[in-house]
């Protein structure tokens, strides 16, 4: 260890926001303070006084929950806030309160009585599957709140952390995340959690650098240590070097431009946000997105027991459109079958699910009913708000697939028409993700209004290098000449077919690659909201001629190394 003492220690987790922050570590460990000592002898306890303490703790818990509910509804959304309604019901649950009072009558102090009364219900829910097991988390959250109020345990006050704090925790509950103030918290990292945890969603919507799921390793970082949280690479670095610090601090000095951006010589490029949940809309607007370039609809379908109906979907699409009254919202129809199992959909095991029945292949097959319902909701939403709604189909590999999808849109429109329901046919487009789509981009472009290049999947399929296989991660670089030529081909096909062309993969959000992408001729770039200011700034600095000459040199290159050299030369100038 001694030899390593001055070297920065890096811990790997899942980065959930492409932002970095440096600050001073603060450990948040609410449960550490809640270890109760052995209860005093029953004769020493006054049951009446304990009942009163318990009633008082419940009053304060209710008031706290009400405040946190309001705050969350305002900052994240109604859906996330609803969890607090359930918590309030647990605070008042007669089964629990009866249990607590019985234990007090047996001579226990209120805090011990609370601990006892929650024990069985928590164990009961823990033994159940899926969402029922999540209720155990809710019960623990409620129990710990009551214990904290009863014991006056010191808790790090999350709402008033000092500016420049990096919060470290085992996990962050909805109640915890609701209190974080993005002006004070420079970032957070958690031992547990994944990309779709409450904490991750909150971090994205508020633009807080965050890494989740680091594992027990995180606990080797002491409170007060200097820590860098890199939400892009998923790294948490204790005692970062001056060089690492500087890079982390660099990204955030760019001003947000609310208005659309043009190159120095006047070519406009739309800069839009990729959004996975409604909670992220606010962040997209705050970072100056011109619209939404990729609205993933999977979140509507995951983590529930039945698919959302037409009206529920209609409201969600309408809300997304309402956030950009002058912009465009590109909604991708349901793309499942790869890696995201949905309980109520039958997804047979496949050797290579990513090369199997997913995306449009399911929508035209086993999920035809879901597809129609989604299209009905989309067509109705298009008529409901002033912004432009666009709909695109994922994983298209052939022209007949696209034609079948377009026919479904027509038949849905005819149904709505004969039922007298107000609707509008949105712009329609295809995602270019498969090599076959890139090779038939001319024929696809003739039939739609736009093409959108999904570089993450396109790269894995062009390079035959699976996204989840770390051993071939090196091959999965969108700057490989083969991928660049697939992009070049797609852009030319779009121009010939009078369609606009965008890009919605991670490549689009890398400001170092902005000159290359503008040079390739993309009309729209869509990315995680937090990188929008940098990309807009990069576009404003560009001369189209320079960008085009870079793109020519890059697509002619034989290797990725040469492409990088060309890109770096341009960036350094």
């Amino acid at each position, binding site marked *: 260890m001694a030899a390593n003492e001055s070297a920065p220690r890096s811990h790997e987790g899942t980065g959930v926001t492409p932002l970095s922050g440096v600050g001073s570590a603060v450990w948040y460990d609410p449960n550490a303070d809640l270890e109760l000592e052995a209860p005093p002898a029953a004769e020493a306890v006054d049951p009446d006084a304990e009942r009163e303490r318990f009633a008082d703790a419940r009053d304060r818990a209710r008031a706290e929950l009400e405040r946190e509910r309001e705050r969350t509804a305002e900052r994240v959304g*109604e859906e996330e806030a*609803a*969890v607090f*309604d*359930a918590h*309030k*019901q*647990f605070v*008042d*649950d*007669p*089964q*629990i309160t009866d249990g607590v009072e019985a234990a007090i009558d047996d001579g226990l102090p209120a805090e011990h009585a609370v601990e006892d009364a929650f024990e069985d*219900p928590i164990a*009961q*829910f823990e033994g*159940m599957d899926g*969402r*029922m097991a999540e*209720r155990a988390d*809710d*019960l623990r959250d409620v129990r710990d709140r009551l214990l904290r109020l009863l014991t006056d345990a010191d808790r790090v006050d999350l709402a008033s952390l000092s500016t420049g704090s990096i919060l470290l925790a085992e996990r962050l509950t909805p109640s915890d995340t609701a209190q974080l103030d993005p002006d004070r918290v420079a970032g957070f990292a958690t031992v547990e959690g994944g990309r779709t945890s409450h904490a991750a969603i909150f971090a994205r919507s508020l633009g807080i650098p965050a890494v989740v799921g680091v594992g027990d390793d995180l606990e080797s970082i002491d409170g007060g240590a200097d820590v860098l949280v890199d939400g892009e690479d998923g790294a948490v670095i204790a005692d970062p070097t001056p060089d690492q610090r500087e890079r982390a601090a660099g990204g955030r000095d760019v001003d947000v431009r609310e208005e659309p951006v043009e190159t120095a010589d006047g070519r406009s490029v739309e800069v839009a946000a990729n959004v996975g949940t409604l909670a992220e809309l606010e962040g997209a607007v705050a970072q100056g997105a011109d619209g939404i370039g990729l609205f993933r609809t999977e979140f509507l379908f995951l983590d*529930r*027991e*039945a*698919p*959302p*109906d037409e*009206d*529920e979907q209609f*409201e969600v699409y309408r809300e997304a459109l309402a956030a950009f009254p002058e912009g465009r919202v590109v909604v991708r129809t349901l793309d499942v079958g790869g890696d995201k199992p949905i309980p109520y959909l039958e997804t047979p095991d496949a050797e290579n699910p990513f090369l199997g029945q997913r995306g449009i292949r399911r929508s035209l097959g086993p999920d035809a009913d879901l597809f129609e319902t989604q299209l009905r909701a989309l067509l109705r939403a298009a008529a409901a708000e002033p912004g432009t709604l666009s709909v695109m189909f994922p994983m298209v590999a052939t022209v007949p697939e696209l034609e079948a999808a377009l026919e479904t849109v027509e038949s849905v429109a005819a149904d709505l028409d004969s039922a007298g329901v107000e609707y509008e046919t949105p712009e329609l487009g295809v995602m270019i993700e498969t090599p076959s789509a890139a090779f038939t981009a001319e024929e696809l472009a003739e039939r739609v209004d736009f093409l959108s290049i999904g570089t993450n999947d396109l790269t894995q399929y062009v390079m035959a290098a699976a996204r989840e296989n770390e051993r071939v991660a090196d091959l999965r670089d969108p700057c490989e000449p083969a991928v660049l030529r697939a992009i070049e081909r797609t852009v030319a096909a779009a121009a010939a077919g009078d369609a606009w062309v965008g890009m919605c993969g991670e490549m689009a959000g890398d400001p170092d690659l902005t000159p290359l992408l503008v040079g390739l001729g993309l009309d729209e770039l869509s990315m995680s909201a937090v990188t929008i200011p940098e990309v807009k700034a990069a576009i404003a600095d560009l001369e189209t001629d320079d960008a085009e000459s870079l793109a020519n040199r890059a697509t002619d290159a034989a290797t990725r190394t040469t492409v990088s050299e060309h890109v770096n030369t341009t960036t350094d100038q």
Partner: protein
Amino acid sequence: MERTVTVVPEDGLHARPAAKFVETATEFDADVRVAPTDGDAVDAASMLAVTSLGVASGEDVRLIAEGDDAEAALDDLEELLSTPETESEAEPET
């Protein structure tokens, strides 16, 4: 007084619908109990008891109420369970 109702909200009697159900049940003086078709009745005022029934969308439940406003309680709870979640949540701006 007893009534059998089919649960319509897509989440069944879980987090949010259950919280609303319990909230409504406690608004009445009547003693309200709820039971799955093939199980024992539990206290409708207990979030814990209601969620642990694990009732999914499309299943039937028996509502049992006793007391002065039993009928009104059953009416309100039936309406709640027959209303898709989205409709009651769609217009929060009122």
